[in-house]
């Protein structure tokens, strides 16, 4: 079987590609910032890490809105025809779960901050309202929820990457090209 060569009409659209990679890198950064928080003693360093974690989390929520609107109005490339149906279905399920988690995690973080009595803001530009009254036990529960969802997201991201690599390295169908940022035109 010769590897497919993908023409432009089977690629994701440039905004979809840009949003995918931008969010991917921010999500990885925000995850590791979040993991480090509890390791840092109370002090300005910790407050800064929490601050950046929350700013980037709000950024993800906003980008998610654009991405969902874009996804709803632009058809993605068709499933790889050579893959068995169960694999394509599994891929779709993972994609749906990724979309759900990409918004559920920032919202759970916002709720967690609210319950802990801290507002959430966007790079100091504006403050979001607290959604909940200060409630210590609830804040603790929401922290657990936030962490479990974040770990679940990273597990699914791992699966997503593994599947992409399987297509690239084992199936050799060059599926990755659909999501590769566009190079300068050579034609």
């Amino acid at each position, binding site marked *: 079987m010769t590897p497919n060569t993908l023409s432009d009409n089977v690629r994701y659209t440039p905004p979809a590609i840009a949003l995918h990679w931008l969010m991917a890198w921010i999500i990885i950064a925000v995850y590791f910032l979040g993991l480090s928080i509890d390791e840092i*003693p*109370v*002090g*300005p360093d910790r*407050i*800064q890490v*929490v*601050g*950046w974690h*929350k*700013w980037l989390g709000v950024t993800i929520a906003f980008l998610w809105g654009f991405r969902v609107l874009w996804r709803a109005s632009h058809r993605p490339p068709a499933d790889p025809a050579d893959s068995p149906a169960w694999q394509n279905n599994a891929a779709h399920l993972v994609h749906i779960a990724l979309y759900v988690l990409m918004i559920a995690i920032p919202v759970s973080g916002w709720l967690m*901050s609210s319950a*802990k*009595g*801290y*507002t*959430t*803001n*966007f*790079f*100091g*530009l504006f*403050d979001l309202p607290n959604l909940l009254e*200060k409630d*210590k036990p609830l804040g603790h529960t929401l922290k657990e929820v936030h962490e479990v969802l974040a770990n679940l997201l990273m597990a699914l991201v791992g699966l997503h990457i593994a599947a992409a690599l399987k297509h690239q390295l084992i199936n050799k169908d060059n599926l990755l090209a659909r999501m590769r940022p566009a190079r300068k035109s050579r034609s």
Partner: protein
Amino acid sequence: MMIRRTAALAALCLLNASAWAVEYNSVDTTKSTIRFIPTLMGSKTEGSFKKFSAQIRFDPEKPAQAQARAEVMVQSFDIGFDEATDEALGPNWFDVKKFPTATFVATQVTPLTKDRFELSGNLSIKGQTKPVRFPVTLTRESANAGRLDGTLTIKRLDFGLGQGQWAGTGTVSNDINVQIRLSIFNK
């Protein structure tokens, strides 16, 4: 006719005034709050002092003769997160071991409108005394009870709050919003 009407109006005014003529001379601290709202990387959070005493003599008709004084037990500060509360009470912030109380002594009350006054006084925190001036609003809740609400912004570094690693204002803003609510009545 004219004289009678004026007299009637005057009597009505007097009656009206006497209905509200109350000198507030007690503070119900259980219904009063003193809240500190710092800004951390743009996010607001709230700490409060659970224990304080306050004396007041305040006749809204005679604001010039008003007297007010409050003494706050700094040890009762709580910001809702034990490690942060411990840090706030430590030597870099309130240094409660050396400075167990903070005080406010009113020096002047000037009427702005019927129920709004400008309160001037001396605020002492951590051994530093600074003059402050801020508006307070009186809400008359019954014939002999009411509520005073005031908000002021202090510069934490004026009082030596936040030393050492906290001295910079990029992470924790210099401005701290202080919200005071006093439940006052005539005993």
